[in-house]
């Protein structure tokens, strides 16, 4: 057992060393859905959306401040794929694709809808 673990350890080390040499994982190709102009600079959003959304979420839930621009529902409205009307489903879908690439688990959609509000309201997708 112990030697097995040592071998796995060595392999991990080798892989870690090899990592920077070979660009092993290619960047995700995302289906951005409707897209358009983002509420903020996309680079900034890529790095900071979680902090912005978390901040706004607390203000909305606890103080009742509505209409902020960094809302999860807003992301979904613009970025749900036109194929399955969702930001989840495949590794091309907007939220799932990037989160799989970055290996960060999203639990937003255990409670929130991954479909745009107009789809939930029974209106045809744009």
């Amino acid at each position, binding site marked *: 057992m112990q030697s097995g673990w040592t071998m796995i350890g060595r392999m991990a080390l080798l892989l870690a060393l090899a990592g920077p040499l070979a660009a092993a994982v290619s960047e995700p190709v995302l289906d951005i859905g409707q897209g358009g102009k983002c509420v903020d600079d996309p680079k900034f959003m890529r790095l900071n959306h979680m902090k912005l959304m978390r901040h706004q*979420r*607390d203000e909305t*839930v606890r*103080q*009742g401040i509505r*209409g902020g621009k960094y809302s999860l529902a807003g992301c979904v409205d613009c970025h749900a794929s036109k194929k399955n009307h969702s930001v989840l489903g495949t590794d091309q879908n907007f939220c799932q694709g990037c989160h799989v690439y970055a290996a960060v688990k999203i639990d937003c959609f*255990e*409670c929130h*809808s*991954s479909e745009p509000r107009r789809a939930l309201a029974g209106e045809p997708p744009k």
Partner: protein
Amino acid sequence: MSCNHDQQRRQFLSRGAALTAAVSIAPGLMLYDFARARPPGEAANPAVRWGMLIDTTQCESGCDACVSACNKENGLSGRTLPTDSQWIRKLELQQEDTGRKISMPMMCQHCAEPPCVDVCPTGASFKRADGIVLVDKHRCIGCRYCMMACPYKARSFVHEPVTDHSGATPRGQGTVESCTLCVHRVDQGVAPACVEACAREGHQAILFGNLNDPKSAIAQRIRSVASVKLRADLNLDPGISFVGI
């Protein structure tokens, strides 16, 4: 005010409620009155206290329009197993000695002194500035202390993963939930789903509005008819009052 005086007053209030049981809400009376939808960026107003006045004399036995509307609005299954969420229930009660029957909806009473908030170890249960008691599910760990603390059995625990997110309220497994007074609608200046449904059925048993505004229909009505709060002896100061109990 002495304790004794308080008790007498309460007895008087319950008797008064029985006497005025036949008084109905005048036709055309506004069911709710909002100043306006709160503009974007503005926080809930601490000068407002949202509440309801439920007139049991107008509530029809067997009608469950309010319950179905709540289920649909908030994406609840409508099943009534002990493991299913129920935010509003219909109660059919009978007075033992007289045999008098009443029918009424029962939900979170949006207490001004909510024990669910007192016991919550994470700060998930909270009372919003305008009196609406909510669960911040981002903070809820599902310990269910609040369910034990609530004397009205108003809260439910979500036992199973939520797959249907078609409701207006985000819901998820492992958290506790209860009537939100349709906070998402109220913030837009729209009455809660149950209130709307009751009126649609032509019953007008639920009056919704700002208890703190002396000119609101609910405040005027509470001034003019006898109403009671459930388990007033607990001093939780519920935001929901009842007529005809």
